[in-house]
Each structure stands twice: as structure tokens, then as C-alpha cells.
């Protein structure tokens, strides 16, 4: 990590925002590193989770929201389970990812695209249509043949449906999406 001039760069508002939205107090973290030691993704993160916690204490908004770590976290809950200060670390990571999404800062575009393809299916059909979700992802990401090697396997074992199944209340599910969008607009 680079040296940081804290006097100039602490974003107090950001710290307060994360505290409020997560209901957690990052100041409780004493940097024991237990979360990072247990995290299966440490090897893939640009900043291991204990460093994200330290950056948060120091109000380093840009570094955190532009990090890959917050998108690569799978919410496996190891950090939360093992934190001796009982901080819900995985929940903080989730909140950071949500804020990054709202501010349109997406360091891992493919991951976000996959999530979006998934949610589009939920909005349209009320449930997940696996083939459609994968196809939509492949088209939008440009990775046209991602996981195409799995196709013959699922076909041979008759594991997929080629037509989506729309539930009766799919309009009610779509309304949840719409109302949520409205609240976002209302609150800026």
C-alpha cells in the first residue's frame, strides 16, 4: 500500500455513510488479520479484506470503491464468523459493493454483468431461467462461448429447459423492481 496523507484524504462522510448503512462500527477493528487469514479470496483480492477495513477506518473512499476486492467477495461469511470484535465484515463488504454500484464504479464489469443478467431473468419471468441468463451474459459481456463446454454435459443429462417458465405473478415481481427504482429516483 502507498503512503497516504491522512490529514488531507480522510473522507469522514464516507465513514459515517458506511456505518449507518451497515449498522457496523469499523473503528472496532484492531487489525488482527483473522479475516484475511481465513478469506478464500485473499489470493485474488487487490486489497485483502483486513486492508479494506483499515482503508475504511482511514476514510479512503476512492481506493475502496475502485478496488476489485469488493466485487470478488463471495459473501462466504468466513470473516464475519471469525472476527474477534464481532464485526459483520462480510456485510460491510456488501455495503461497499452496493455503494460502488450506485456510484457506477465497477472494477469487475463481468461480475456485475452476470448479476444483472440474473436479475433481468427474475424481473421478466419471476424465476431464474438458467439458459437465458447465461446467453444474455455471453452476449452482453462479449464472452460468447463462456462455459459453452458445459453445454453438452447438461444436455446429455437432460438438466436444462430450453423455454423459460413464467410464473403467474411475474408482474408482481416486476413491480418490486419498478417500485425499488422509483425509491432510488425519489432519494436521488
Amino acid at each position, binding site marked *: 500500500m502507498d503512503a497516504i496523507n491522512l490529514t488531507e484524504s480522510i473522507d469522514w462522510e464516507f465513514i459515517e455513510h458506511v456505518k449507518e448503512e451497515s449498522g457496523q462500527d469499523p473503528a472496532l477493528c484492531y487489525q488482527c488479520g483473522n479475516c484475511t487469514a481465513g478469506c478464500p479470496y485473499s489470493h485474488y483480492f487487490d486489497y485483502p479484506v483486513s486492508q479494506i477495513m483499515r482503508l475504511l477506518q482511514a476514510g479512503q473512499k476512492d481506493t475502496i470503491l475502485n478496488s476489485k476486492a469488493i466485487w470478488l467477495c*463471495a459473501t*462466504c461469511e468466513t470473516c464475519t464468523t471469525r472476527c474477534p470484535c464481532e464485526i459483520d465484515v462480510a456485510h460491510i463488504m456488501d455495503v461497499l459493493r452496493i455503494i460502488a454500484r450506485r456510484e457506477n464504479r465497477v472494477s469487475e464489469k463481468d461480475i456485475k454483468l452476470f448479476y444483472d443478467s440474473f436479475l433481468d431473468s*427474475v424481473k421478466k419471468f419471476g424465476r431464474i431461467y438458467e439458459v437465458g441468463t447465461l446467453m444474455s451474459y455471453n452476449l452482453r459481456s462479449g464472452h460468447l462461448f463462456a462455459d459453452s463446454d458445459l453445454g453438452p454435459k447438461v444436455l446429455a443429462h437432460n438438466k436444462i429447459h430450453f423455454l423459460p417458465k413464467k410464473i403467474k*405473478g411475474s408482474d408482481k415481481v416486476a413491480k418490486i423492481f419498478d*417500485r*425499488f427504482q422509483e425509491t432510488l429516483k425519489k432519494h436521488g
Partner: protein
Amino acid sequence: MAKKRYAYYQGCSLEGTAVEYDKSMRVVFDALGIDYVEPEDWSCCGSTPAHTVDHVFAAALAARNLSIIENMGLDVVTTNCPSCLMAFKKAQYSMENDETFKEKVNELLDEKYNCGVYAKSSLQILYEDVGLEAISNRVTHIIPDMKAAPYYGCIMNRPPKIAQFDDPENPISMDRIISALGIEVCDFAFKLECCGAAFGVPKRKMVNELSKKVIAMAEDAGANCIVVACPLCQQNLDLRQEQINQTTGSNFNIPVIYFTQLMGLAFGYTPKELGLDKLIVSADHFARSRITKQEYLEREKAKEQEKKAKKEVKKQETGEEENP
């Protein structure tokens, strides 16, 4: 007392790539006399993608289902999928403990949810409500050749504050169920280690590498079968096993079977009835090598007698040497 009736939430993946988990769970529920009913017109729980957007929104997708179940007059929903389970449990937890959050969720819903439904994994229902004795009593067949690595996945029991079931570091419920079926359980260190979760499509290499660690640890523990409770873990370890071999240079060929399929086999059901044909790495040899419980007990008795006889002979031999 009237028999407890559960709402059974199938979840999306159990309609598709994990159809055998649903099939085998229904067989096991029926075999053990569990009374369950499906909520009508259920929708997706929101899963991982929803909670990366917003927590109120995610809770609303889950709570639409809880509200349907509440209106059916039921208070427990059981689901096989840990991701659905956590979506329900987290929605319930946040809504119960935060009145403002609850209001915000209900503003997104057509039918308000009043927080009267508790989610439990099907594993928990089988372990706590049915119990090991009833499971063991139902066993008709034993698979003597199997050495099982019980793989729970990361969120069946975690975080403990919300999961409220089993141990968050060393769970034992599935171990004990497998033991109750007369099957050998290996001492497996990666019961909860993450397989790579929902990143399989966008981050395939990373998922393959993480899954590899899990399979390698199972094999190191002496397992010849991985027993799972999560449809996503199953997919990452089984459907992607050839990818894992290609990505990491490994050479795995180990069956990854749902614990409910294993229960069904022990209860004497056919592989077809349990969707064993849906597994990519075949587990058919385990079904073929089954013997009846009677046969197994006789075999064990014979082994015991043989051991005793050998001891006897040895005793006589050494005895003769000592007293010529």
C-alpha cells in the same frame, strides 16, 4: 399432536441444473413421513445478485415468498438451497430487528409481510425434527465401499448469529446423518471452505482453482465420494470437474452426490428415483455395490467371528509355547 406441516420452497436451481436434489429430497421426505406443501406461484429469492444491489430490495424479493407462506397459515419454510435459506433468514432478521427496514420492504410488496415465517434448511429439519434414530431405522441398504467427505458449503451454518444451526466452524449434522446410514465418514478439513460460489461464469479460472482445493482435500482425507448439501457447490465440483482438471492439471474423477440421494440409496430406492443419472461424474457403482442391511449385519458378524477365532488360535499357540 397434529403432524407439523412445512412449506417447502424448491428454488430456481432445483428446477434446472439441480433437479436431482429436489427429486431426492421429496423421496426422502415422503419416506420419513414429513408433511410438506409448496407455496403457490413462488418466485426467486433474489440470491447473491440481489444483495449486491440493495438490502431492502433483496429482502423484498425474499419476503414476497414469505408473505405467500404466511397467508397459507404456515410458520416454517424449509428449503434445500443454502442461498435461498440465507436470503430468507437475512430478510427475516433485518425486518424483525428494524422497524424502518420492515416498512421499506413492505412498501415494495403488494402483500405486506408480518414476519411470521422462519426458514430452516431441509438438513436441519431432517437432523432436528426427524432425528437420527428415525433415519437409521428407515435404512434398508448399506454401501460398504463408500468413504464420504461431508461438504456443507460456506453458508449453511454461517454467520452463526443468523444461521442458528449447527457449528459455524465444524458442523456435524450431515456427518451424523451419513453415519446413521452406516456409511464411513472421513475427517474432512474443508467442510466449509468456499468452492468459488456464484462466480463460475464470470470468473471461471478462480472458481476452478478454489474447487480444486476442496476436492484435493477430500481425496487427502481418503474420501472416494463428496457428499453435498448445496446446489451451487455440487455444480462447481461435479459439472465443472473436467474444467478443474483442464485448468489446474489435476486428474479428478470423484462423484459429488447430494446427501438426500445418499439417504435414498440407503432407504432402498432406485438410482432413477433419486436422479442419480443426473450426476456428471457417475456414482452408479455405489448404487450397484449396495447390500441389504441384513446381509451387512451377517457380514460384520462373520468378520467378528473370524477375528475372534484368529485370536483364539494365537492364544493357544502362544499358550503352548509358554507351557511346553
